[in-house]
C-alpha cells in the first residue's frame, strides 16, 4: 500500500472527524457568522470611503485611489496595480489571515495529542506509517481550514458583489488570488500546530503551547511592522522586512500579493519550504516517540 493512499485515508478521516465533532460544528458556525458580519463591515467601510472621496462609480473610486497611492509612493505602475485591488476584499483577507491562526489552533491542537492521550493512535499504529499519519493529519487540518477560508471568502465576495463594489471578473482574478494567499499562509500555521500537537500527550498543554508559539510569532511580525512604520515616518522610505518578520506567516501576504512575480515566488517558496521542513521534523519526531 503506497504512502499516498495512507495519507489520503487519514486525511479523509480527519476531515470527517472535524466536521462532525461538536467542536468542529461550533467553530464552523461561529466562523461563518463572524465572516458574514466582517464582510458586511468591510463593505460598509468601503461604502463610507467612496462617499468621503465622492466616487460615484467603481472606476472613479479606483482612479481616486490610484492618484492617492501615486502621490504617496511616487510610483505610477505600483499605484495602478494597488488601486486595482478591491478594497473590501483586501480588508476581508487581512481579517481572514489574522483569524486563521486562532482557527488552526482551536481545530488542530488535539488532532494528534488527543489521540495520544486516549491512545486511539494505537489502533492505527500497525496500519499506517507514522510519517503518513502525521502528514495526513497536517493535510487534513490544512484542507479543513482551506475549506473554511474558501467558504468565508465566497461569503465576502457575495456581499461585495451585491453591493456592486466588485465585478464578476474581479472576483475570479482577485478573489481566487486572495483565497490562494490565505490558503498558503494557513498551511504554515497548520504545520506548526500539527507539529506541536504531536509533541504532547495532553491536549490542553498542546493548546497552550500552540497559543504561546503563535503569539510569539505574532509579536515578531508586529515588532517588525511597527519598526518599519517608524522608519518610514521618519525617513519617508519603506524598508524591507527584518529577518524576524519572516517568522510570522501572515507577513507574507504583501509579498504574495505583490505585482512582482519574483517576490510572489520567493514568498511562496519560503512558505512551502517551511511547511515541508516542519512536516519532516514532525514526522521524524513522531517516528521516534513511544505511543
Amino acid at each position, binding site marked *: 500500500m503506497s504512502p499516498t493512499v495512507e495519507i489520503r485515508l487519514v486525511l479523509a478521516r480527519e476531515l470527517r472527524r472535524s466536521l462532525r465533532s461538536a467542536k468542529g460544528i461550533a467553530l464552523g458556525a461561529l466562523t461563518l457568522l463572524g465572516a458574514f458580519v466582517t464582510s458586511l463591515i468591510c463593505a460598509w467601510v468601503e461604502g463610507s470611503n467612496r462617499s468621503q472621496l465622492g466616487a460615484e462609480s467603481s472606476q472613479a473610486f479606483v482612479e481616486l485611489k490610484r492618484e492617492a497611492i501615486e502621490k504617496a509612493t511616487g510610483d505610477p505602475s505600483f499605484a495602478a496595480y494597488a488601486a486595482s485591488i478591491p478594497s473590501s476584499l483586501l480588508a476581508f483577507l487581512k481579517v481572514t489571515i489574522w483569524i486563521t491562526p486562532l482557527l488552526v489552533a482551536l481545530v488542530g491542537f488535539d488532532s494528534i495529542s488527543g489521540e495520544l492521550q486516549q491512545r486511539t493512535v494505537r*489502533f492505527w499504529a*500497525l496500519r*499506517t506509517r507514522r510519517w503518513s499519519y502525521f502528514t495526513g493529519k497536517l493535510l487534513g487540518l490544512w484542507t479543513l481550514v482551506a475549506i473554511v477560508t474558501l467558504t468565508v471568502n465566497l461569503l465576502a465576495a457575495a456581499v461585495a458583489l451585491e453591493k456592486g463594489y466588485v465585478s464578476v471578473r474581479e472576483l475570479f482574478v482577485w478573489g481566487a488570488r486572495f483565497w490562494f494567499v490565505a490558503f498558503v499562509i494557513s498551511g504554515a500555521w497548520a504545520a506548526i500546530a500539527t507539529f506541536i500537537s504531536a509533541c504532547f500527550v495532553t491536549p490542553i498543554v498542546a493548546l497552550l503551547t500552540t497559543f504561546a508559539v503563535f503569539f510569539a510569532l505574532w509579536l515578531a511580525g508586529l515588532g517588525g511592522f511597527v519598526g518599519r512604520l517608524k522608519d518610514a515616518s521618519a525617513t519617508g522610505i519603506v524598508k524591507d522586512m527584518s529577518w524576524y518578520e519572516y517568522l510570522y506567516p501572515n507577513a507574507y501576504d504583501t509579498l504574495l500579493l505583490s505585482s512582482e512575480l519574483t517576490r510572489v515566488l520567493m514568498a511562496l517558496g519560503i512558505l512551502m519550504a517551511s511547511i515541508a521542513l516542519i512536516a519532516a521534523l514532525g514526522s521524524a519526531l513522531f517516528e521516534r516517540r513511544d505511543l
Partner: protein
Amino acid sequence: MTAPEAAVRLHRLTKRFGPKTAVNDVSLTIGRGSVYGLIGPNGAGKTTTFSLMAGYLRPSAGSVHVLGHEPRAVDELRSRIGVLPQDATLPATDEVGELLVYLARLQNVPYRKAVDVARGALEEVDGIGWWKMRCGNLSHGMAKRVALAQAFLGEPELVLLDEPTAGLDPKVAWEIRQFIKGRRGRSTIVISSHNLQELEEICDGAAILDRGRLVASGKMTELTAADDEVRVKVAAGTKRGSGPGEVPMGELRELPMVKTVEFDDEALEIVVGFERAQTNVETVIGSVLSSLLRNQVRVSGVTRGRGLEQRVMDLV
C-alpha cells in the same frame, strides 16, 4: 529476519522509562499457531512487553521480531498482525461500521470488500446491530467487543490481546473467552492478562514475568506440572496412616507408576508425582483414587498439576 516458525521472538529485550526498568533482558520465542499467555502481577512488565511487541514502544536494548520483522515494519506486517490494546479508547465520533471499514481500508482491503470484512468481524463478536452506533455511545463491554473485532479484522496471522476481559462482567468475559477459543488454530494469539484461571483455560503456553524479568516460560502443562503431578484433596481431619480413613502413604508409594508422594497436613492435599514417559495421568488418577477409596479416605477433589495460580505464587 528470523526463523519462519517463530511468531514472536524477543531477544534480550529491555525497556527503561527514566531510571525505572520495566522490562529487563527478556528473551522469549512464541511458536506459530499457539495461544500464548503473558502472565504476571501488576507492574510485572506484561503491558510493556506487549507494547514492545506491537511496536508502540521502542526497546531500550535488545530486539523484537514479529512474524520475522521488526514491529514497525508496517508494510511487511500490514494485515498480518492484529492488536487489542488494553487502554486505547475507540474514537468517540466515529460510527462502529465506518471505523472498521476505515481500519480495513488501512489494511489495504478495497472499499467494497472492506465493508464485507468489517461486517464479518462485527458479526463474529455479535455486534452487527451496532454498525451505525457512535463508538462514544457504546458500553464498556460493547466497546471491548468492537476493539476485539478490529484486532481480528482480515484474519491476521498473529493477534496480540492485552487484558481482553479486564473490567467486564462475568457473562461478557465468558463470551469473549469463547470467542478467543473459537479463533484457536486460525491465528497465533498472544494474551496478556493477570487473570490466571482464564489463561490456564485458554492458553497452550505462557511466560511468567515478575518485576520486568522472565521467571518461567513453556507449555501450560509444563508450567502447571499437569502431566507430572496429581493432587488429591481430602476431607478435614484426615491424617496419614494405614487405618480406615487414613492416607496410606506406603501403599501409594508402591504404585508402579508413582515417583513421589507427599501429604500436606495443612492444605489437606496429597501430591503424587509420576513419570510422564511411563504412564498417563488418567491411569495415575485411577490407581491413586482406587487405593484411597479402599482405605475409606474421604476425597473432596482431584486436580492435574498444581494449577497456574499456585505455580505463579511459587515464582513471584
